[in-house]
């Protein structure tokens, strides 16, 4: 992409294909000038809406008003986190609640270059006397934890050990997602969200994949099942490490 800024007009009218859109949205995370320009070009495009007026069927009104019954509006944005795409937000609670999760199963993804003692259930290591990988991180001398409490009482805590180059995410009360969605984890490196694995919504704790030591923070988004290479707008939380 020789001149990515030149895509701003096409982006403002949704005239980019998926690849270019992903590239441009990544670019937006580091270009305030383009963010401002897209915003103003969208205002220009919006005037075209005056030319396309058509009254919808009356039944649509009833349908829409009924649709919103079970759905809670998302709270306003906190101060924007640098590095997130323009449309992204600091979402406080996920989509319509399917049901709270009670299971205590843990899913741990292997981190790079570290000896993991117990890749299974952290609550009950199958070999007594052995310490699970999660516990090793939590007990590391340089462990630092950051927490976020979501609007409906769910909590997310990420604990990182620079020395071990690992980070573990622990959650309570995160809602179950429908089958076609998954929680995806991200590590933040230089204002970019880098994929760090998927999280089974039954998991209570999960290791983040990738370089945790040099990350400045971590985040969780909701993505289609199988995950996504760029974060969606559906942000559950983004947290910064204290000693980034």
């Amino acid at each position, binding site marked *: 992409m020789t001149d990515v800024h*030149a*895509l*701003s*007009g*096409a982006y*403002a*009218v*949704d*005239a*980019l*294909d998926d690849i*270019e859109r992903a590239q441009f949205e990544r670019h937006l995370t580091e270009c305030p000038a383009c963010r401002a320009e897209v*915003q*103003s*070009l*969208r*205002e*220009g*495009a*919006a*005037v*075209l*809406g*005056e*030319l*396309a*007026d*058509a*009254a*919808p*069927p009356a039944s*649509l*009104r009833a*349908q*829409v*008003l009924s*649709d*919103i019954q079970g*759905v*809670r*509006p*998302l*709270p*306003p*944005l906190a101060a924007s986190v640098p590095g997130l795409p323009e449309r992204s*937000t600091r979402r406080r609670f996920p989509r319509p609640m399917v049901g709270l999760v009670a299971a205590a199963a843990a899913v741990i993804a292997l981190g790079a270059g570290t000896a993991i003692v117990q890749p299974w259930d952290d609550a009950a290591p199958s070999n007594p006397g052995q310490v699970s990988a999660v516990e090793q991180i939590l007990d590391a001398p340089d462990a630092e934890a950051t927490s976020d409490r979501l609007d409906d009482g769910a909590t997310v805590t990420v604990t990182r050990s620079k020395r071990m180059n690992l980070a573990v995410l622990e959650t309570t009360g995160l809602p179950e997602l429908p089958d076609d969605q998954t929680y995806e984890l991200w590590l933040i490196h230089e204002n970019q969200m880098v994929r760090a694995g998927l999280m089974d919504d039954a998991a209570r704790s999960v290791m983040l994949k990738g370089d945790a030591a040099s990350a400045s923070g971590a985040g969780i988004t909701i993505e289609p099942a199988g995950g996504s290479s760029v974060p969606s707008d559906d942000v559950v939380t983004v947290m910064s490490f204290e000693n980034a």
Partner: protein
Amino acid sequence: MGATGPPDLGQLLKLSGRGDRQAFAELYDATASRIFGLAVRVVRDPAQAEEVTQEAFLEIWRTAGRFDPERGSGISWLLTIVHRKAVDRVRSAEASTRRDTTYHQQNQAVDHDSTADAAHASMEARRVRSALGSLTEVQREAIELAYFGGYTHTQVAGMLDLPVGTAKTRIRDGLIRLRDTMGVGA
């Protein structure tokens, strides 16, 4: 309720964001024609346009609290949401016949005169058509194909027989002109 003058969309969005269903119903009444109208222009099929509109209003309800009046107008925010959904719908339908035709073989519904058919003879619509008249023909055609046709800029270049990569510049230049002529996006 009983207010004179056009409703303040920013205010209705703010209230909706707090869960005020009455405000949201007012928002619907104030904007559904423009939102559905845009959906129909892009997806063509009225049944699908209804679905797109329904999805758009659901997202509007969910995210109304995120609308920031400092960053743009309410109507632009609303139309951005429905436009994106309408284009996604068109692209996923993979209407292959559309992709291969040139602009001039196309159904002429996107030409300048036809946009007048669909519109009310409102002051605002007249202002917009006049502003469009200040664009070059290529800029106008490129924007119409992109915005109302849902085509990518690469497809637009092909349809208008432009060198690859130049459609995006025409679109950008045209939008700047439109924005400045209409006095929005300051």
